[in-house]
């Protein structure tokens, strides 16, 4: 299925060339808008209703901010997506594909097909801040940082326990240090604003990292 990419620059999902970006056509039945100015590009897109699907790269915002919402009955040919990555780390192979309650099934299937064809794995989710992974792991990372402050165990022992006990490839402390505590702050602050849940409130170490980044 042919798809066109409108790249507004600064995409977090595709910061470098990838099979998905290489596979784009000049004029496709699917339009994919990536980068940091998705909203403006989408606003300029004419005739998007006639497309098979329109895929908008999301940051921490909800798809509804672009596609609109109405009485829990919203949905069209517009979907959101984000390729998951932690901070400065390499993006993963996962696409979180965001749908609305009445999203057209044909649009959803088309979106899944083009991502699958590029070797990406797709997890479909509803239009909620944090989607699946950030909503699940950020409270866990916050808890790990807080417990480190409280000297539950050393950083190495925390990491070793979670790697050996659960088979995680990397412990939370090493992972956050590698991918950037300041980025963790950005994501958790956005989730905290979205949900007001203290579990998302950035942990002290993430706040400190953000303050140091600003200096």
């Amino acid at each position: 299925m042919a798809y066109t990419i409108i790249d507004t620059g600064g995409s977090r999902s595709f910061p470098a060339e990838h099979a998905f970006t290489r596979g784009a056509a000049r004029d496709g039945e699917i339009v994919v808008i990536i980068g940091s100015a998705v909203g403006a590009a989408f606003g300029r897109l004419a005739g998007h209703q006639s497309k098979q699907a329109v895929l908008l790269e999301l940051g921490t915002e909800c798809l509804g901010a672009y596609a609109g919402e109405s009485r829990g009955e919203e949905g069209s040919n517009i979907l959101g997506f984000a390729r998951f990555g932690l901070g400065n780390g390499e993006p993963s192979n996962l696409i979180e594909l965001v749908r609305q309650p009445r999203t057209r099934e044909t649009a959803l299937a088309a979106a899944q097909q083009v991502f699958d064809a590029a070797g990406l794995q797709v997890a479909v989710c509803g239009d909620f801040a944090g989607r699946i992974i950030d909503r699940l792991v950020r409270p866990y990372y916050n808890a790990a940082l807080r417990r480190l402050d409280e000297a539950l165990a050393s950083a190495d022992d925390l990491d070793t326990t979670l790697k050996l006990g659960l088979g995680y490839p990397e412990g939370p402390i090493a992972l956050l240090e590698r991918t950037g505590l300041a980025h963790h702050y950005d994501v958790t602050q956005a989730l905290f604003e979205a949900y007001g849940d203290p579990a998302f409130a950035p942990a002290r170490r993430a706040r400190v990292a953000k303050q140091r980044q600003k200096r």
Partner: protein
Amino acid sequence: MSVAIKTVGIAGSGTMGAGIAIIAARAGFKTIVYDTRQEALDRARKQTAGFFAKSVERKKLTPAQVDRIMGDLTSTSRISDLAGCDIVIEAVFEDLKIKHDLLGELNQVCPQHTLFASNTSTLSITEIAAGSGRDERFVGMHFCLPAQLMKLVEMSPGIRTSDDAFQSAWDFCKALGQTPVKTRDNPGFILNYFLVPFNNDAIRLVESGVAEPAAIDRAIKAGLGYPLGPLELLDMVGLDTQLLVAEALYASTRDPRAACPPLVKRMIAAGHLGRKTGQGFFRYSGNAMFGG
């Protein structure tokens, strides 16, 4: 008083007790498993023999090695048979009174130098130690399930545990071939403190319609490289077990993330306990999983 450990007692011959006994005997320690229920001892002995038969089949051990190990591994329903142990690890039901009753009896039977350890995953080491009659010689040693395969042991001193006692238990843990990590005596220690709320959060995503179980697991595995998705893991562990550990953790932390989501109770009421009932977040038939 540091202890040269030669003989190990295991109190309780359930899944954890039997697994810890395998570790101790395999590492060359004389190991005595105690349980008041003879049928539980017989079942554990049979399972242990089966485990070692597999080890021979997979060429991890020779038949001669297994004969030596099984010769070092005995079981008893008389608590007095633990009198010669240098360390006794209790792996009985997670109930403070049951543990205190057992430890009180052991304190009468065992010599002064004997270390006591608890494999508790949710109770406080200090609180268990307080009923042992020897709280200075009491340590937390939380083995992971399945103990005979997992290297990790979370080790916690109680408030009154002496440095010597902790060091002796630490050295013993290393002599078992395990990997000890030191953690404070906190509810859930490290593993359960993080895992139980994380799994609850995954259940809440299903409950609130964020995504289907298969999508959540796929995201976690593909996005983070975890070997298992949280809902697959919960089906393996059992929703009834998740309810128990979550309730225990919530009771001691009052952390809202530790509180078991209502969906779990509904699933238990419906008989959807996970793999053991053929249905949990996924449906199972033999080894095959549906709904993934």
